[in-house]
Structure formats: structure tokens, C-alpha cells
């Protein structure tokens, strides 16, 4: 048995009435990659924040390399040899790589010496771990994959032996993720211990040695990765059997519902984000748009949904034009049967300070069934909300609760229920399951497929390639504002990944 790098015993942590970590025990062997998997809100991040000194446990003991340690601040964690790569990078964007790396570990009051020292140390780390990055580049000019590398270097520069990575692949392309995994394996070979927090089962199977599963604040199991399966882990996470890939029949496409021609959209900085894009969506099919975040997908659906002006191009809904370059607005489009589930439910999809019932009709509040003369018919709205809560299994079930108090998955269901229940002909969905846990993902996917089977046209954009592949009847890949390829749902991940990275750009354009 290898030595233990980390041993947690009896960790408890509550935030008010929420018991985020309940009597957690965890052992991580030195020199291994240890996965921690669980749904959103299962307590993974809380546990790691305790280990990194962001929070303090209410009770419990932390041992690092066999010795009990008290970790009260990130400084204590760093001193104990623990480094963390956060999900949202903790980098100063307009600083150089070097400046970011020495921040907080400068050593002396004047920078000249510490920068020189960091430069040579960085060169050594680059050689040892194959982590090349230009030390004088500004962070904001680096692609995300390299920014993440800087985060790893930051931890190594501080002498970390134990590296915690929180959802590291969420922002990466498949190729970047592969590269990260190679780096992690190399770190392991050099004797470092890696803790990988994720909700993606595939990653766990791909690179971890051991995996621990968390559910609702408790540690439910630890398995050797070789001896477990994706199905078992999913079941442990959710507490019941889950369908990882939704079952669906053949698509039965009908007439064209939405037709996009030569659409060009610029963002607020006048950068062309959508460049001459054309495609059709037919009744009874789901079209998925794959792409790494920031390649124009967001602007595309915003233009179609009337929340962003297009520069040129035409969009036809049921054969009649939408004035996307002029006066199209979401209200008009809703009336014409085009519903939109925005990517960012917190800022665009919902008013978090509103009651659940208010959000569940927002945008449709002028429909006669919600009105009583000039006033809102509160009774009707509440009944409507209760019906949706029932049908979509939204929890908690109180329509008067502030929307901010619902979990991500339930908030997403509130938005979906609102849009789907108006029975639109075309549904445009951005990131249907971002920040949504496995159980709710299954539910949402089933609903979208039910829409399709009811003869609606569904357009989905998502940065989760798995989601696109399992939902779509046709997959369009966007890169740098253009549609660089169309594939069927049988396309392999590697094939789509290359398209998403723009590798086959030339061939695809032919």
C-alpha cells in the first residue's frame, strides 16, 4: 500500500441550515490521480475549499503526508504543499505570466530579484514537466488552455506536491483536455499527487487511478477506477439508475421551420462573431451546434432570438421573414412561435430576485390567461406555476420562493417549463444543461426529444460535445464564426473535435 498524501477524517461543514459536508472520510494515495465525482451541490468544491484553506471545517481532521495539519488560510495549504487550480482561473488578466506566478510568493519587497529568480525557476519547471509558456505574455492574450497551464505552474512554483484541479476541462477543447491529461500523467510520474474534481464520468475513467463519489454532502464510495464502470459511478452519484445517453427514435423531419441565410453578426467591439452563416431547421428535428465557447454560437442564437442585432442576412420563420437586422424583438418572436432558452439563465433567463411563479410566466405576462383586466391574475399565475412544478419535477415545490434559492438544475427547469409550455413551433436552446446535475440532465434531454417528436424544430447550442452528440439529429460545427462542417449524430468525438479546433477548416469549406 502506497503512503497517503491526504487523509481526511470526519470532516463536517455547514452553511446555515445547509449541511454541505457530512462526516467525510477520504484517503488519497501519494503519486496517484484521484478523482472526486459528484453532482453539482454534492459538496465536492466545499471539501476542496476546506483542504485549500478557503473555509474551515466545523469538525474533523486533515492529515497531509501522515502528519496532522491545521489549514486556516490558503497560505497554510501552500505551506503544506497543496496547490489548487480553480475552475475560474485566479489570474490577473492584464499581468504577464511571470507576474501572475510570483504574486503572493515574491519573496522580497523589491521585484527585480524575485522576477529573475522566477524566470529561471520557470525554465526548470518547463523542462521538467513539458509546460511551455511564454513568461512575458499577457494572460488576456493567451488561449484558455495556456492560462490553465499558468495556474498549474503557479502551484508548482510554490512547491506543491499535491495538486487539486477543480473542473479543469469545462473550458477546454477536446484537444486541450487531452493535452492537460498528458500533463497530469507526467506530473504523476514525477511523484506528484493529483486530485481531480469533475462531474464528467468519462474523464474519471480516462485518467484516474482511484475515484471517490460524493452525493448530497456525503462520501458514498471510493473505488479503484479499473474495477468500476461508468454506469456504476453514475448510479452512485445520483442514487438511482440513470440513462447516460437518452433513448430516441428516428427523426422524422418535415417542412423547414427556420431558415437562416448569410447571417452576419458583430459583437459590441465590432468584431465579426458570426460570419455569413446559413442553415435550415425542419419540423421534427434537433439541430445541434457544436463549438468551443466564443466561436460565435452565442451571438448566433442571440441574433435569431432577437436579443442582438445582426449586421446582415435573413432569417425566415415559417416562411415569413424575421427582421433580424432591424426591429425583431423577443416579444414579437414569442408571439410568432419562436421560444428561446438563453445560455445565461442567471442574467438573461431569470430574474433571480423574483418568485418562482413570476419567473415561470415572465415574457408571457401579457397573455390573456394571466390577466384580469389590466391587472395580473395572481391566482391563475400561481396555478400555472404549480402545474409546471408538478410536470417538471421542480424542487422545492413552493411557487412563492425566490428563484435564487433554487439549484441550477431546478432554475433551468423553470426556464424550460416556461418556454416549452407555450407550445412554440421553434425552440432555440443555449447550453440546456450547463451547471445542471446528471439526474436533471436526463430529464431535460427527454423533454427536448419530446418536443422534437411532437414535430417542433429545436436548435441547441452547447459546449458539451457529449450533449450535442446524444441530442442532435444533425450536428453543425462552428469555428471562428463560420459553420465549418455538418455531421450526423454518429460522428466521432475526435472528428468533431478537429472541426471545433478549426483543423479541417479548409476541407470542410469545400
Amino acid at each position, binding site marked *: 500500500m502506497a503512503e497517503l498524501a491526504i487523509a481526511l477524517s470526519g470532516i463536517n461543514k455547514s452553511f446555515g441550515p445547509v449541511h454541505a459536508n457530512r462526516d467525510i472520510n477520504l484517503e488519497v494515495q501519494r503519486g496517484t490521480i484521484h478523482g472526486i465525482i459528484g453532482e453539482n451541490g454534492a459538496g465536492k*468544491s*466545499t471539501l476542496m*475549499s476546506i483542504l*485549500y484553506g*478557503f473555509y474551515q471545517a466545523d469538525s474533523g481532521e486533515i492529515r497531509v503526508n501522515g502528519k496532522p495539519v491545521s489549514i486556516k*488560510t*490558503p*497560505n497554510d495549504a*501552500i505551506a503544506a504543499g497543496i496547490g*489548487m487550480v*480553480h475552475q*475560474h482561473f*485566479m*489570474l*490577473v*488578466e*492584464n*499581468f504577464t505570466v511571470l*507576474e*501572475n506566478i*510570483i*504574486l*503572493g*510568493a*515574491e519573496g*522580497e*519587497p*523589491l*521585484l*527585480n530579484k*524575485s522576477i529573475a529568480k522566477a524566470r529561471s525557476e520557470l525554465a526548470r519547471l518547463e523542462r521538467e514537466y513539458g509546460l511551455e509558456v511564454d513568461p512575458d505574455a499577457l494572460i488576456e492574450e493567451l488561449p484558455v488552455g495556456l492560462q490553465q497551464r499558468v495556474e498549474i505552474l*503557479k502551484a508548482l512554483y510554490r512547491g506543491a506536491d499535491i495538486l487539486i484541479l477543480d473542473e479543469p476541462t469545462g473550458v477546454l477543447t477536446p484537444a486541450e483536455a487531452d493535452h492537460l491529461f498528458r500533463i497530469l500523467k507526467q506530473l504523476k510520474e514525477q511523484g506528484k499527487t493529483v486530485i481531480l474534481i469533475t462531474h464528467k464520468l468519462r474523464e474519471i475513467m480516462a485518467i484516474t487511478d482511484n475515484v471517490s463519489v460524493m452525493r448530497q454532502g456525503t462520501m458514498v464510495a471510493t473505488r479503484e477506477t479499473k474495477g468500476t464502470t461508468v454506469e456504476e459511478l453514475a448510479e452512485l452519484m445520483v442514487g438511482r439508475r440513470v440513462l447516460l445517453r437518452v433513448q430516441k427514435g428516428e427523426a422524422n423531419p418535415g417542412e423547414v421551420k427556420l431558415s437562416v441565410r448569410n447571417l452576419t453578426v458583430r459583437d459590441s467591439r465590432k468584431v465579426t462573431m458570426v460570419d455569413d452563416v446559413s442553415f435550415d431547421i425542419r419540423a421534427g428535428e434537433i439541430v445541434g451546434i457544436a463549438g468551443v465557447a466564443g466561436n460565435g454560437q452565442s451571438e448566433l442564437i442571440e441574433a435569431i432570438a432577437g436579443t442582438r442585432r445582426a449586421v446582415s442576412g435573413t432569417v425566415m420563420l415559417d416562411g415569413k421573414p424575421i427582421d433580424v437586422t432591424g426591429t425583431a424583438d423577443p416579444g414579437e418572436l414569442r408571439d410568432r412561435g419562436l421560444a428561446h432558452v438563453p445560455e445565461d439563465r442567471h442574467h438573461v433567463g431569470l430574474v433571480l430576485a423574483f418568485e418562482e411563479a413570476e419567473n415561470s410566466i415572465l415574457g408571457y405576462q401579457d397573455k390573456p390567461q394571466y390577466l384580469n383586466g389590466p391587472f395580473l391574475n395572481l391566482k391563475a399565475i400561481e396555478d400555472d406555476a404549480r402545474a409546471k412544478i408538478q410536470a417538471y419535477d421542480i424542487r422545492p415545490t413552493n411557487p412563492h420562493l425566490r428563484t435564487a434559492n433554487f439549484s441550477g438544475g431546478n432554475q433551468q427547469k423553470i426556464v424550460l417549463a416556461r418556454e416549452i409550455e407555450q407550445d412554440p413551433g421553434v425552440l432555440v436552446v443555449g447550453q440546456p444543461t450547463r451547471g445542471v446535475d446528471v439526474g436533471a440532465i436526463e430529464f431535460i434531454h427527454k423533454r427536448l426529444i419530446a418536443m422534437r417528436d411532437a414535430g417542433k424544430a429545436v436548435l441547441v447550442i452547447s459546449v458539451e460535445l457529449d450533449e450535442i452528440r446524444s441530442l442532435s439529429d444533425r450536428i453543425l460545427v462552428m469555428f471562428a464564426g463560420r459553420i465549418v462542417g455538418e455531421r450526423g449524430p454518429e460522428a466521432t468525438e475526435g472528428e468533431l473535435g478537429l472541426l471545433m479546433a478549426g483543423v479541417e477548416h479548409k476541407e470542410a469549406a469545400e
Partner: protein
Amino acid sequence: MDFLNALVLILDSTIRLSVPLLLACLAGLYSERAGVFDIGLEGKMLAGAFAGAAGAAVTGSAWLGLLCGILVSVGMALVHGFASITHRGNQIVSGVAINFIAAGSTIILGQAWFQQGGRTPALGAAQRFEAIELPGAAALRDVPLIGQIYSELISGHSLLTYFAFLMVPFTWWVLYRTRFGLRLRAVGENPAAVDTAGVSVAWLRYRAVICTGILTGIAGCYLSMVQNAGFVKDMTAGKGFIALAALIFAKWKPVNAMFACLLFGFLDAASIRLQGTPIMGVRVPVQLMQALPYILTVILLAGFIGKAIPPRAGGVPYVKER
């Protein structure tokens, strides 16, 4: 020669008028670079001016007066820090409150202590910072151009003036060449990065607002102990806000800040100089000339600075995530 003389005179008063702006502007730079917006520069400067003049009048020493000015201004900066760092209050509201407190309390306290209608007693030579003659200024006075520039423009200012201009390279050095400066800039851009690096966000921001307090205190003392001989109510007359405008104009950079303040100082000096002088045969109303620096401020800020990107975490209290 006449023109040259006039120009040197205008430039000389440009320097004098720029000093309080420059000190206040650099003061704001420390605070805002650390992510704490400060529209209370005006109030702190006013309080510093009052405390400096009052302290000098009572103790008879310019240096003790300066110390009083700095202490009172730092005290008010700490109130702003306590409200906006410790209690995560709204920084604008806190800054406005400080401006009101300073405007009101200086008059009340002045009247209570000195009974001169809110003024402090006129300060004598020992209670002020007098002009310093640089070595050789008298000897060079008659050398054309160079001598004139040296003796009129560069020599003959108070210690605080030289201090203000030396603060420009010093601030640059602190910001870009020291650990404190690196952390200060980082905390204004992404406090979470500083926090996860194991550095206290609150303590860093407190140190920044203390720097602000020291400099606004000195700026105030310059007004009441160098430019004037005593405190007069509302003597800052919006300089704190002009300094804030200069800070934005300078994109939060120290050397730019100096040029921005010199520009505003020059506009001010020119408008004073041109009062009553017909321009191209037209008599321009005094009020219009007086308003000119402010009008130009608006025009410059609106049209000429391009995109000024403030420190990204500016104005936002730091709350640990999750």
C-alpha cells in the same frame, strides 16, 4: 520677449495650480488601483486643509500642522475603508458622505475654535511652507531663457511642490517595481487571485487607502499652508473632482497623471491670466473664462481619452465566492 515672459509666468502658475491636483490624483491612484473607488478625495483634501491650517495656527509649526492635516485625512480615509472594505458598503455612498462631513464639520469646528466665520487665523511665515530658492537661481537669473526657466519655473517653489512632483516617479516605482505595487495592482484587477495566493485582500486595500489619506492630507495642506495663508471654507472648490477626472484621463497611470494635472493646471492658469484680456478684439466675460477649465474637462473626458479601462475590480467589495 514679452510673450516669453508671459508664457513663463503662466507656466509658473500652472505648476502652482497643478500641485494640489497632482497630489490628490496620485492619492486617488493608490486607492483606485487597489479596487476602492474614492470620490471622497475632495472631502479628505478639505479636512486636511483645515486640520493643517488649524494645527499650524495652534502649534506655530508648519510641520506639526502638516502632521495634523495628514492624520485627519488618513482618519477619514480609514472611515471610507471601514465602510467599503470591512463592511462592503457602497463606495460611492461612503465617498459622498465623507465629502459632506468634511464640508460641514470644517466650518463648524473652525467657527467654534477660532470665531472667524469658519476661517482659521492667518498663518505667519513660520507656520507655512515657504518658497525654496534652489542653489544658483539668483546667479543664473540673468542668463536668457535657461536662467529664466531655472530661476522662475524650477526654483522658488515650496517643499510640498517638489514633493508632489517627486511622488510621480516614486509612485511609478512603487507600482511597477515593488512587491507592494504588484499586489496592489493585482487586488484592483482580481482580488480572488490575491486571496488564493495567500495574501489578505482587506489589509492590502487598507494600506492603499492609507496612502490615499496621506496624499490627500498633504494636498489639503498645500492649499491652506502654501497657496493661501490659512483655511477658508470650501477652499478645495472641486479640485478633488478635477483630480478624479485627471485620474481617469490618465488611465490610472502615474506619469500620465502628472501630465493630465499639468494640463488642467495650465487651463486654470490660462483662464486666470486671460481674464479681462480681450481675445482677438472680443471681450470675453470673466465667468466664461473661469468656466473654461471645467468645460474643457468635460470635452476632454468625453471625447479625447479613448477607452479608459478602470481597474476591473474597482468599486466592487470583495466577497469570497460560494
